[in-house]
């Protein structure tokens, strides 16, 4: 099965062939590297930009104004923070012009911990992104969703922030991407750039098929009725593992992959909490003014009297960075054991 980087690459290939995407750009996105995570190798429409994040977002806005459907990359979300004003402009242009202009553009950027990225290759962006009106924000947790969400993103009329959980970019999927060859070694031969000189290399794209993960739709990944856990990105598979462990212990946890952070699938989350009465939100952004806190607010606002226990948030510690040493990273963002424990405790909690 394809990994997430390959899935994104295939989606972008589909998009440049069929969806009118004319520019896939950013630092080191084009040849020879094809992106620091290989997600843009071999594509036709890629090019290397100057080392200037403001120029990247600005140019994406301009290209979108001109109808080019750009996909712009910020190499690491850690380096997007000097562009928040431009992201706000992208998000308010349609509204500020009273519907005159719209900006069909995608910004993709790797987020989160898990590759020993130290202070500046470990940032989450979900809290900041969800505070910016006018964007749609997605974050896949597996290759197939990554493919489907990118295809949806490239067909949007509005700016889409596509967050790539970098810890999962090299993780293989469990479901086949439509058109992906059976043999994953064959896929690699076809679309992974060779080591060494790549100047003569051309990818052989499989016959990819359209597949949509609609923006705004979450997914129940494990059904359960005693406790709900809602997550996305890197922590999602950990929540699944934790739920599976709990199941062995006789506790039935429902796992929801939000997939779209904004506008999110409240119906799905609400229905689950109405069933279980208990909910844990998990993400790895720092925990103060965190998007999970928004979800908790919504939960309390609408479901207070149906709750069997207080809703809980498990998120990154409010410290200025994720330290390089393993012990530091592990202590800073939720790990499997933290999630399992939090779920156990929540499931068992009595007033």
């Amino acid at each position, binding site marked *: 099965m394809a990994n997430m980087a390959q899935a994104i690459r295939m989606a972008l290939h589909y998009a440049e062939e069929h969806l009118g995407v*004319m*520019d896939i750009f950013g630092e080191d996105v084009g040849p020879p590297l094809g992106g620091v995570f290989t997600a843009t190798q071999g594509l036709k429409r890629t*090019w*290397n930009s*100057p080392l*200037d994040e*403001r*120029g990247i*977002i*600005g*140019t*994406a*806005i*301009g*290209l*979108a*104004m*001109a*109808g*080019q459907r*750009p996909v712009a990359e910020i190499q690491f979300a850690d380096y997007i923070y000097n562009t928040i*004003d*431009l992201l706000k*402009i992208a998000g*308010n*242009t*349609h*509204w*500020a*012009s*009273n*519907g*005159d*202009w*719209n900006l069909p553009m995608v910004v993709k950027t790797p987020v989160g911990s898990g590759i020993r990225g130290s202070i500046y290759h470990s940032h989450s962006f979900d809290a900041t992104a969800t505070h910016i*009106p*006018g964007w*749609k924000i997605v974050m896949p947790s597996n290759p197939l969703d990554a493919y489907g969400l990118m295809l949806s993103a490239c067909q949007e*009329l*509005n700016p889409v922030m596509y967050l790539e959980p970098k810890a999962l970019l090299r993780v293989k999927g469990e479901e086949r991407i439509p058109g992906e060859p059976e043999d994953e070694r064959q896929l690699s031969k076809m679309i992974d750039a060779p080591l060494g000189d790549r100047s003569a290399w051309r990818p052989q794209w499989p016959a990819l098929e359209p597949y949509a993960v609609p923006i705004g739709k979450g997914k129940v990944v494990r059904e359960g009725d005693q406790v709900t856990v809602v997550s996305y990105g890197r922590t999602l598979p950990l929540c699944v593992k934790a739920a599976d462990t709990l199941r062995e212990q006789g506790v039935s946890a429902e796992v929801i992959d939000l997939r779209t952070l904004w506008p999110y699938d409240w119906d799905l989350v609400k229905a689950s909490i109405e069933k279980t009465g208990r909910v844990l939100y998990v993400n790895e952004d720092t925990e103060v003014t965190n998007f999970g806190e928004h979800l908790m607010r919504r939960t309390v606002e609408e479901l207070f009297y149906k709750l069997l226990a207080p809703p809980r948030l498990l998120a990154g510690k409010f410290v200025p960075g994720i330290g390089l040493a393993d012990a530091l990273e592990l202590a800073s963002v939720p790990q499997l054991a933290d999630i399992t424990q939090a779920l156990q405790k929540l499931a068992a909690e009595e007033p």
Partner: protein
Amino acid sequence: MSRPRLLNREEASSATLDRELLVRIHDVMVKARVLEERLIQMYKQGHGYFWIGGPGEEAFNVPLGLLMKKGQGLDSDYLHAHYRQSATLLALGEEPIGALRQMKNTATDPYSGGRNFAGHFSRREWNIAPVSSPIEVQYAIAPGTAMAQKRHGGDGITIVTGGDAGTAEGDFASCLVWSSRPANPLPILIIVTNNKWGISTTADGQHGETRISDRGRAFNIRSKTINGNDPVEAWRELKEAMDYVRTERKPFLMEAMVSRLYGHSSASGANFVANEVDCLKEFEAKLEKDGVLTREQMEALRNRYTEELAAAARQVRDEPQPAPESIWNHIYAEGK
């Protein structure tokens, strides 16, 4: 009132441009000045909360608009403007009542539906990108439309304008960098209208550059500083620069020295400043001296526009304000 009219078809004796053109430029300059004065008056009479605009830049902004290729899409010119560009919009043929509507933040405001400040134009039909208040961001955005035009071919270009103080923002440098990449030089006319002020801050303490246009030279961008208070020079220089950008598909940086005739904005009082060059006054003196127009003709013109704008302001006064629930409109574009 939609197109500047040509009042007189005879050749101007000593004028350096075609007489017809001089008259046309003058016409729009007057109209633009009258519009701005009307906006200021509206502010002072309580028919608007904030004024900012371009009186003093007409000699430059009118030729710019007249020389633009108007239309929608890659074959036409894109304008990424700042908030002093009313004269350019009028030169393109825009109805001035829209600006009054924005001043009065009516629901009918064609640029923002009563949401944004005066001078914040937007007209997709003519490739006029929405003016947004943050200084200089338009310089980071403009390379995007220019890049699309470069790929598209033809002779459509991108124009971006902003003030002198704002060039201290990194986005101005980004514009120079992105426009001059050897991998893909862009058909973009980068304009700085230099009035030597940023609100209350004078340029002399802040600019180490002899001329702002010198910053283009480092990037091997053709660059020039011109007198933006002379519409004849502005027309000629803009024409040459635009021809270069259109045909060579390369960037050009133009710095135009202009005046700020009513101070920064209503926040600083919006009163006429006596010690700045008034381009309209100077131009009119020249037109009179050269026999292009008589004082009477020019006064008649000004009076006519003044009346028209006064009538428009009265009309706008009774137009509806946006409804509270309209804040929820247009957050997202929806499938067409």
